[in-house]
């Protein structure tokens, strides 16, 4: 068996790293298309067509990262998986219902009679919203270490709004990149609103987060990690301010630098995610279950790692290829 020399500790780190990568890529990729879904304006059909066209070729592959993340959690850390999903059974069910609604509406809307199209558009919009809120709520409960008391619930509701704001923000930055004319103007407007909501959300969640776990607070106030960790929110806010300026100036820039807001959004996602990741290492459920305690059998982990080492670079390569193929402004919607 290859990778025989890897210790359980190293395997644990590799798998938590892969899990982290899958969750982060999911949040960024499905994040923007969920955000676009939430933003659909019920009254303007033309915008809805163009917005959906902008995510058409991608959303399916984006969603696959969620399946990979759940699969990795399930397989590498089975105990964590069953604890997390049994505690979060109801919100997970709502998230799935949201994902189902949105996934099918996308296709149905194009094939049904014109009068029914709006109905499927609304189900796309509210399916997306339900998914965002449920994911944020689940994230909130998860970082409390699966607490279910009132404070944890309030925190989770805050996280639900925060995650939705984040998705809306990255979704509107995506639209700036892919849309033109009126819709792009609208996207600039949404992005500015989303930016403010996101900034408030990050501050609120950071403060709440510091009060949740003693170990996390200690880590943030320790040296030298504290300095390094403090650099993350500072960098995030610098980027967000930069993005705010860009969002004001770009509409007059005649199409230049349109990629900037989306790039900044990705960077902010990566930074916030790293802050969470570093804070809770080496736990797979914060404060409750460590990576090592939840890790499954080494032989099986090594067996899947062989495939992962070969396939994940390939996946990234063909994903990149698809983004190159569909680069530039999105085409008018035609579903074949």
């Amino acid at each position: 068996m290859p990778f025989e020399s890897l210790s359980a500790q190293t395997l644990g780190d590799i798998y938590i790293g892969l899990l982290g990568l899958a969750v982060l890529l999911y949040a960024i990729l499905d994040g923007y298309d969920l955000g676009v879904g939430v933003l659909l304006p019920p009254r303007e059909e033309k915008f809805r067509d163009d917005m959906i066209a902008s995510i058409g070729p991608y959303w399916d592959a984006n969603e696959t990262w969620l399946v990979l993340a759940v699969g990795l959690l399930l397989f590498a850390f089975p105990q964590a998986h069953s604890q997390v999903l049994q505690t979060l059974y109801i919100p997970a069910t709502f998230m799935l219902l949201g994902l189902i609604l949105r996934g099918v509406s996308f296709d149905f809307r194009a094939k049904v009679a014109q009068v029914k199209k709006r109905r499927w558009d609304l189900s796309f919009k509210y399916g997306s919203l339900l998914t965002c809120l449920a994911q944020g709520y689940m994230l909130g409960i998860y970082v409390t270490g699966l607490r279910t008391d009132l404070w944890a619930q309030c925190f989770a509701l805050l996280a639900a709004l925060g995650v939705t704001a984040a998705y809306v923000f990255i979704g509107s930055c995506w639209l700036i990149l892919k849309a033109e004319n009126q819709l792009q103007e609208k996207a600039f407007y949404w992005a500015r609103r989303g930016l403010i909501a996101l900034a408030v959300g990050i501050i609120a969640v950071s403060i709440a987060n510091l009060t949740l776990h003693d170990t996390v607070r200690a880590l943030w106030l320790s040296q030298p990690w504290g300095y390094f960790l403090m650099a993350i929110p500072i960098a995030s806010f610098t980027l967000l301010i930069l993005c705010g300026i860009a969002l004001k100036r770009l509409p007059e820039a005649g199409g230049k630098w349109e990629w900037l807001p989306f790039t900044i959004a990705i960077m902010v996602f990566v930074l916030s995610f790293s802050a969470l990741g570093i804070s809770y290492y080496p736990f797979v459920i914060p404060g409750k279950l460590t990576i090592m305690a939840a890790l499954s059998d080494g032989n099986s982990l090594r067996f899947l790692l062989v495939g992962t080492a070969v396939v994940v670079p390939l996946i990234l390569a063909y994903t990149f290829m698809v983004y190159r193929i569909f680069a530039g402004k999105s085409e008018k919607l035609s579903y074949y």
Partner: protein
Amino acid sequence: MDALILSRFQFALNMSFHILFPTITIALGWFLFYFKLRSNISKHPVWMRIYRFWVRVYALSFALGVVSGVTMSFQFGTNWPGFMEKAGNVAGPLLGYEVLTAFFLEATFLGIMLFGIRKVPNWLHTTATLIVAIGTTVSAFWILALDSWMQTPQGHEVVDGIVYARNWFEIIFSPSFPYRFTHMLLASGLTASFLIAGLSAYRIYKGDSKMAPKIALKTATYTAAVLIPLQILAGDMHGLNTLEHQPQKIAAMEGLWETSNRVPLLFFAYPNENDRENRYEISIPLAASLILTHSAEGEIKGLNEFEEHPPVAPVFYSFRVMVSVGLLMLFTAWQGAYFLMRYGKLPPWLLKVFMGMSFSGWVATLAGWYVTEIGRQPYIVTGVLRTEDAVTGLPAGNVVLSFTLYALLYAVLLVAYMRTLTLMCRRSIEIEEITTEEREMAKASKMSRANIRSN
């Protein structure tokens, strides 16, 4: 009702809904690749028309399959935590390989297949179609490898109730895998064939005189006519394999209580598990012994021989539904092939039969899955892990809520799916497909002249 029975209902519901769509897409992907190849070779626009119609059906079926598949992947953890905690060392990597080698491939290249026709060169679009077909098939490979291992486990070791993988080759290629995989691929081939034939027959019946539905009907009918005898053969071999490894399942399928020689084949019966006997039997003497042991004297073990066996009635009836639908498919496909070869078209009554059979593949596949999955009970992994030991400790109320929501949503989606397919047919009847330009193009191409003649 407790969480166990509810979780089982919910899983059965999700699986039944989910399997409908991969059953279509596995084979439909290969049909699309064939249509695309014909289009590339003949340059006749009709093949692209056919491709376009069916790629829409593909996209819709794929979307429904994906969303219900995501739901399935969550259910393992939410409703069957014991399964992953105890058998996760085997199940995890197999599911992981499915996502890595198949799921991403399909989902990514589907984007090119659906939206890339004007963006990429033709060869890349054709390749994308091929990759999507391969991806769906590879996906089926992993899922059936896992299911087969759960039915006929080998290559593992159990220590303190936890399964540890020892030999991956043995795990992936467990004894029932080759039969199960072949049986499923052929089932998909038939499901897609009858769907294509059924919807095309509907278009022709409603007065669509264009070439596209005629050619599609022909392709699908011939495919079905070839696949159905193969499927009967594969099913028979699968049955023999089951007799070797899971004799209690065969006993339930045959409704046989006492071990005996000269076992009759039951057409119909009412198996009564309380009295452990059948009522209202209609049977052919000796036939079951002949089929299963290839000898009229052959002995088959009865249910009373086994300490544990699956619930008899659902397995017994599902098996009969599967076989009856299979035989109907045989007659329909061969009848259709005969008329097409003889007269080049189908009479209206046969068009109606094909319309009625549009979703026959679904019925047979579902019935087949019930036979094999219920037939495995009371185990989730045969001889290793009992279903009741794998279930969630969740409060039943939670499962009631989720079950109700899923059931409602799935019912709505199923109706919407079928209505949308009908609507798509009606629309393509109205649209004048062949333009004058295309007619001239068709005339210019020798290959396609041959096509027109044959219609």
